């Protein structure tokens, strides 16, 4: 059964990637009576959709969820596959449903007689990936707005609707559905590898700062977009990390790349002793005209429900997040104190880490282009490592392998998530690439080898070598 590769395009063919068709949030309890259906709808994208169609689409989702309860009352539908699209359902808070409708990729062919044939590629989207995307949507919303229920308590439906519109209007434009992959399923954190000495230096830096800036409740320390230290709970850190690395940092990267430090934020003016600057908050802390305001974030929403100011401060490649209770008013004096205290020390620390990083690099020898690429993820500490993804930008995650191979990784991952067992899967794709997936004790490793002529035994040897060099302390099932 030879399949023609779906990506082989000829002049008469046009391809359309998956795109966001609809995104809506509803609560069936808000409009239980007939004729009141519109009240259920809290958010609907695109807004210009006609009212009756909105009601119909929400009704369909309700019906599907209700229908599946016939077969399992506790685990209702998570997705609906149709010829043209896939719909993903997520109930993040009781009775609050989020639905994301993603169109299937399309190939449009022009026949000889001039007519066009549209072919929906129904098997291209991975449920696990887009299921993770919709969960991410909620987590990101919650990070900046708190829970739906809390908003309802504070300001009723109106406040919630207002918040949802303000957040999702912008956020949905940054979804980039066509470049989502296995990494979204993991939602992991990349950790910066360090020697003990430097790690201790960073820890003592964090302690000193927390001591001197007593208002600070939590601190997180990153280098090169990788995490080194965090005082937050894992789940909160995971979504904050996502925000920092895919949104905040990329937005501030460009000035550094062109060799000029951003003149705007943080008030570099008159301060030549360090490279520190604020990435959040006022663009110039010394300008009395600019109000002192930092973004608020919500953490520990399950129990303590804390609202915090998020201050992100960066010097060269080192970034520190200081989180301060939102009830405390942020003053210009505090910002100036922070800047003068953290700036010089962080600059020094950043160059220390950089030096150590370069020494390590030199010791490990010149980098050869390896004939394999891999993704590693540890469910216990959320640690992720990838050599497949080249660079994260604000717009997308670039991968160095063919999207089909990424989807095979996704397939293997969903096989693993079925049972909590140690397993290994080795497959050979139609393109003759070998793909290996290993799962052992909460850890997952995926390797893509481009030694097309290798056999199973040789592939096994390669992966063994990789495990020995990269993960020498981790046991994998042989």
């Amino acid at each position: 059964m030879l399949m023609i590769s779906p990506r082989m395009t000829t002049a008469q063919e046009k391809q359309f990637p998956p795109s966001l068709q609809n995104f809506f949030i509803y609560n069936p309890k808000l409009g239980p009576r007939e004729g009141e259906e519109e009240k259920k709808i809290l958010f609907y994208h695109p807004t210009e959709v006609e009212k009756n169609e909105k009601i119909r689409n929400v009704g369909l989702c309700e019906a599907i969820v209700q229908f599946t309860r016939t077969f399992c009352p506790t685990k209702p539908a998570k997705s609906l596959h149709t010829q043209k699209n896939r719909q993903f359902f997520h109930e993040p808070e009781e009775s609050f449903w989020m639905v994301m409708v993603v169109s299937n990729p399309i190939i449009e062919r022009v026949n000889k007689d001039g007519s066009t044939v549209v072919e929906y590629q129904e098997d291209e989207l991975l449920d696990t990936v887009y299921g993770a995307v919709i969960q991410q949507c909620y987590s990101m919303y919650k990070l900046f707005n708190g829970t739906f229920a809390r908003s309802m308590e504070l300001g009723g439906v109106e406040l919630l609707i207002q918040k949802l519109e303000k957040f999702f209007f912008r956020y949905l434009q940054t979804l980039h559905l066509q470049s989502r992959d296995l990494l979204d399923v993991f939602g992991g954190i990349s950790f910066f590898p360090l020697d003990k000495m430097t790690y201790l230096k960073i820890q003592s830096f964090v302690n000193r700062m927390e001591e001197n800036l007593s208002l600070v409740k939590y601190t997180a320390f990153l280098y090169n977009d990788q995490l080194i230290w965090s005082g937050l709970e894992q789940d909160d850190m995971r979504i904050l990390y996502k925000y920092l690395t895919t949104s905040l940092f990329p937005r501030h990267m460009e000035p550094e790349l062109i060799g000029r430090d951003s003149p705007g934020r943080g008030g570099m003016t008159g301060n030549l002793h360090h490279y520190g600057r604020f990435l959040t908050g006022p663009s110039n802390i010394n300008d009395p005209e600019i109000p002192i305001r930092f973004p608020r974030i919500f953490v520990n929403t399950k129990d303590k429900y804390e609202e915090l100011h998020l201050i992100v401060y960066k010097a060269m490649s080192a970034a520190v997040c200081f989180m301060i209770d939102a009830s405390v008013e942020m003053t210009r004096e505090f910002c100036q104190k922070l800047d003068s205290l953290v700036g010089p020390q962080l600059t020094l620390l950043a160059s220390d880490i950089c030096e150590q990083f370069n020494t390590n690099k030199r010791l490990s020898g010149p980098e050869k282009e390896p004939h394999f690429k891999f993704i590693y993820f540890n469910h216990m500490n959320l640690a992720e490592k990838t050599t497949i993804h080249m660079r994260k930008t604000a717009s997308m995650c670039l991968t160095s392998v063919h999207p089909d191979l990424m989807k095979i990784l996704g397939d293997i991952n969903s096989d693993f998530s079925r049972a909590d067992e140690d397993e290994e899967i080795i497959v050979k794709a139609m393109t003759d690439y070998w793909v290996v997936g290993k799962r052992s004790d909460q850890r997952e490793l995926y390797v893509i080898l481009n030694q097309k002529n290798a056999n199973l035994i040789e592939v096994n040897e390669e992966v063994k070598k990789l495990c020995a060099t990269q993960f020498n302390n981790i046991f994998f099932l042989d």
Partner: protein
Amino acid sequence: MEADVHNKKTPWEINGSLAPAELQRNNRSESPTPGLVEGTEPGARQDSAMFVHTRSYEDLTGGEEEKRRQESDETDSPGQSQMEEISKDFSELSTQLNRVVMDEEIRDGEVEGTVSCRDSALSDKEEDVTSESWRQHRKHVFVFSEAGKPIYSRYGTEEALSTTMGVMVALVSVIEAGKNVIKSIHAEGYKVVFIRRSPLVLVAVARTRQSEQEVAKELLYIYYQIISLLTLTQLNRIFEQKTNYDLRRLLSGSERITDNLLNLMDRDPSFLMCAVRCLPLSASLRDLISGALQQAKDKSLVFSILIAQNQLVTLVRKKDQFLHPVDLHLLFNLISASSSFREGEVWTPICLPKFNSNGFFHTHISYLDQASSLCLMLISTESEHFFTISNCKRKVLERLNKRNTFQTLLDGLQTPSYCVSQVGISDLRHFIYKSRSSGLFTSPEVEHPYVTQEEQERLLELYQHLYSRIHNSSRPLKYIYYVGQRENLLAWVTSGFELYMCFSPMGTKTGAVNAITKLMKWIRKEEERLFILNPLTY
């Protein structure tokens, strides 16, 4: 001549991805699946095939049928006229096309004797459809008309489930109203798969590891099963005349056949492989039997089929007429579901939906032995030829008895087909080998540790999962090796064959690679016994 064929250099031992790289470099060319040319793999037929050559999978999931249906929706149903054209082509064969009887006469003759068995199964049907045990069934199947009239439910009565089926119909039509087609719903631990073959809708709720496509494939089998009893023409006519017709009136008594088909699909890999398993038999004995069937011919005969225990002994066909594996599976199922055929000779109309969904054949069914293990099916185009065909059966028996062929065959049936240990690979527990050009497959008896029915179904589920991964419609693979806690599995698909192997979890990768070579050699050595290499025509 035959020796020639066998002495030809068979490249499968050193081709593909599993042999050391040095050996195969020459073989690796532009072709994505090098080595075996289709038709030279072990089990490939020497002269001509006896089945419709299907790319099984695509054929079954029937993209074309669907497209045709959609087209007909858009342009004032040219689909119907297309159907008529097709039926014209087959008009010689389809006998009663224009005098299809709408009443139960036909069915009566066939299902007599099965009704009583059905009664005993009733308790099973009348379970509480709100209970947890009902929900936990591995696979529910529902069939209903487009108007929402229940036709079949695997567990629970259709009456108790009419609301559920009503909701399903509503979902289908709401999504169609948006110019879209519902395919499936996915939740944690189960999926709901929909297929629509106008005028019927079929839905499965599966807790298995099968892919959406595999479940849809099984639903199509159920659809074909219904067609085989009614013909598509009759089915369409019924619902054209009365959209809310209660089809159960016509199908009453046939639920058992559908139940049996579903149970069979849970256990027998034939359906998954879309291929037919042959009864292992020495080539000379099989030739004698085929000869007997070939001699007992009649102008109206299209196929003569001899089966034993859901395995094919031999098949003789009219020149230029090919049987589709799906049709043969439906015949296998019909035989294994009904005890009525044991009583004597049965003459019954049967539609072979893949051959021609619009007309009936007339089939003479009889068991040749006391123990009812050998079943002969003579498929004729003439409804009035019962006595002629019955005479053919007598001739078959005569010839078989002549040289003691019959006794040798019966003796052979006493022993199980074959054990995996005969191959001589220590960690190998089970395998399935399919020759793609002939549509035949072979596999040994299922043995320890897959002794309980639950374990046997688990093994098939593992194969189903491998199959759906390697045949994934958008990301097909060439090769899979899986290491698990309870077993290691291997799947390998080339243009010539498909191989699925199950090893003990103690087996190594080196062992598995060596096992492939050894197994392929063994199959080549045994191919005359395991496959039908010389199919005959009348």
